[in-house]
């Protein structure tokens, strides 16, 4: 019996080994996509239009004679292909017959959604993306300003392709100064799904770079606006200034500036530490929400000279607090007007006061628009940048 068992086991195992390899794919057979872009096609017969963006490494011409390099020169070429269909799956399947490669989505980094699609509603798309097994939840979601194809026409300035460029801007380029945080599918979908919480996403725009003097790029990518959603539909846009305030309230801002004028002279405040504390205020049956924002930073630029005594500093701090408060308030009121609860106030009430939320749940959209949102900013100057005297001195009277 043992012998039978052993032989049959080994035969079974041999059979396994002798079978062909169903899943084998050589690395050179893969089409590594960098980005997927989804939009509504212009002709209305189909529902979705999908773009695959990849960088193809191709050997550029002859082998070099120097022998120093040894191999051939590799050159990255951006590659974009388009397909459309009644559903996303159909669009992708249509595409597979066209490329002699295996479409490999695991290395996809970014998903670009068209503005039209976002306005129509991204729920269906999102659900598909969540269930697509090879797609990682770490993919960034960005909204294209206008049609997706326009955004894809941008030329990369530093990276190999548009997708890489966008990812690089989101991840690295924004570490200093005007930072824009990134948002991945998971966070986006979580916001869409959560009650009392609305989603938002960064917007990519195409500009003609005027800053660069001698360069052959006429379309460059810029990211500094935010698309606001309500449920799964995009309802509005926060521009650059409003985005600033929004970022602070979300606790996502790391470093930014507020400029103001004193005696017609510019003075700029740069914060580098943010602490946001929100709390519920209940007075006379109305639930309000209060944001305590604590900024810490320094004076970045100034032509003014004061001796920076304690009182002067206090005045400046107050001034800055007011400026910041106004900017934040304007973005909050815009959000309320658009009816997009991207700050997650409803969710906050739900978490802290489940009983109150029970009454609010059904008509939260209405309540949100005129809920009291109080913003209190406390800006502190702690930086060492202005303990010495500026070059040009103009003292305050």
């Amino acid at each position, binding site marked *: *019996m*043992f012998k*039978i*068992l052993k032989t*049959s*086991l080994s035969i*079974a*195992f041999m059979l*396994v080994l002798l*079978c062909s390899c*169903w*899943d084998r794919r050589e690395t050179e057979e893969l089409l590594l996509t960098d980005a997927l872009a989804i939009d509504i096609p212009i002709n209305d017969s189909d529902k979705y239009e999908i773009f695959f963006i990849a960088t193809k490494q191709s050997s550029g011409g002859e082998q070099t004679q120097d022998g120093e390099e040894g191999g051939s020169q590799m050159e990255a070429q951006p590659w974009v292909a388009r397909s459309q269909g009644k559903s996303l799956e159909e669009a992708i399947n249509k595409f597979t017959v066209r490329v002699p490669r295996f479409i490999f989505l695991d290395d996809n980094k970014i998903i670009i959604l068209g503005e039209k699609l976002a306005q129509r509603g991204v729920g269906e798309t999102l*659900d598909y993306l*969540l*269930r697509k*097994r090879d797609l*990682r*939840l*770490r993919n960034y979601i960005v909204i294209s300003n206008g049609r997706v194809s326009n955004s894809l026409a941008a030329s990369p300035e530093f990276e190999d392709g548009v997708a890489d460029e966008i990812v690089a801007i989101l*991840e690295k380029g924004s570490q200093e100064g005007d930072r824009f945080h990134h948002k991945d599918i*998971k966070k986006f*979908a*979580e916001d869409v*799904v*959560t*009650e009392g919480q609305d989603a938002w996403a960064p917007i990519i725009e195409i500009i003609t770079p005027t800053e660069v003097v001698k360069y052959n790029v006429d379309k460059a990518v810029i990211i500094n606006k935010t698309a606001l959603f309500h449920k799964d539909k995009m309802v509005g846009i926060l521009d650059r200034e409003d985005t600033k305030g929004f970022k602070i309230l979300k606790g996502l801002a790391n470093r930014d500036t507020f400029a103001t004028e004193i005696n017609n002279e510019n003075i700029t405040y740069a914060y580098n530490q943010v602490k946001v504390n929100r709390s519920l205020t209940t007075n006379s049956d109305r639930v309000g929400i209060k944001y305590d924002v604590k900024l810490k930073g320094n004076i970045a630029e100034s032509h003014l000279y004061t001796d920076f005594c304690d009182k002067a500093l206090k005045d400046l701090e107050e001034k800055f607090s007011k400026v910041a408060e106004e900017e934040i308030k304007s973005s909050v009121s815009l959000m309320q007007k658009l009816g997009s609860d991207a700050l997650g106030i409803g*969710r*906050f009430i*739900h*978490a*802290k006061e*489940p009983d109150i939320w029970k009454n609010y749940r059904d008509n939260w959209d209405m309540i949100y628009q005129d809920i009291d949102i109080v913003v209190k900013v406390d800006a502190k100057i702690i930086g060492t940048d202005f303990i010495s005297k500026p070059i040009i001195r103009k003292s305050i009277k």
Partner: protein
Amino acid sequence: MRKEVIDGGQLISIMFWTIMGTAVLTLPVLIGRHAPRDAWIAAVIFIIGGLGLSLVIGALAKKFPEKDFVSCVENVFGIWIGKILIAIFFIWLLHTTSFVIWQISTFTKISLLPRTPLLIVVLIIIIPSVYAVHNGIESVARSGQFIFLITFGTLFVLFLMNMPEVNIENLQPVFDDGFNNIIRSSLAPLAWAGEIMFILFLVPNVKQQKKITQYSMITIILIGIGGIINEFFYTAVFGPLRQHLISPFYTLVRYISPSDFIGRYDVLFVSVNLAGNFVKLSVFMYILIFSFSKLFKKQNHRPFVLPVTIALIILTLISVEGSPQLTNFLDNVFPFYTLPILYGLPSVTLLVAKLRKLK
């Protein structure tokens, strides 16, 4: 034949993976169906149920230290009723094992080998277990302990790497899902906790039988804490989105990305899970084959290994229609007949033994 001996550490190791193996894969989905926000409470109820059963197991083991569960039941109920009860258990186990294999192999197939036929994946998964079972429980226990030592740490590290994504607010408010939903969600975990009664089959092999209660309690607490952490992280990271995801833990692991360069841990998780499920499958199959051989009063279990394996492979391929059907079955049918078998059988045995004053 030399009597096979396993010590406490080995028992805990193999029982840990016996329950945790598919629990990691399936339970979050089943719990999330009813109580997504308060999922961790189901894990607490799991611990309570498991501890209760542990007491029964300990009492039975103390009463019959030299008897495995089959001869114990036959002793208590008489040969014929005992044989019928064991046969019921055997059929339950056969069916459960078949869809356990199906679950593991489908998970492996979907996540690593999507185009490979299911039969091949089933073979890959079943052959090491068959070999281990053929070598006896000692071999299962030793390799189980080895795997436990490696994988336990790995699992823990995998959890911790999601730390930056945790958002505690996702767990608030507590008891939001409603009492009924929470209880409903804990039925499936309780069924899983019932598997701790497999220890009863290994009682004669355990080195220190007096400590069996402790061993099974430690196992349950380890798994329970693992479950609480698991559900905690899962809810805290994904929030209400967890209702909409498939294979939760896999998604969680796929989402880990502590640095730009090394961010792909999914294969690691599948490997850990495969190793753990090897232990689970080995224990299931050992007990299956063991109870089968005992049913026919045979001392040596080896001649039954091959027939039972073949039967299992065939059952696996025909018993499950597809993933949604299996999930529905596990959610709506499985706990209701499993709980009486896994909890009822030992408890009634203990009760009757006490009433008949058997020693």
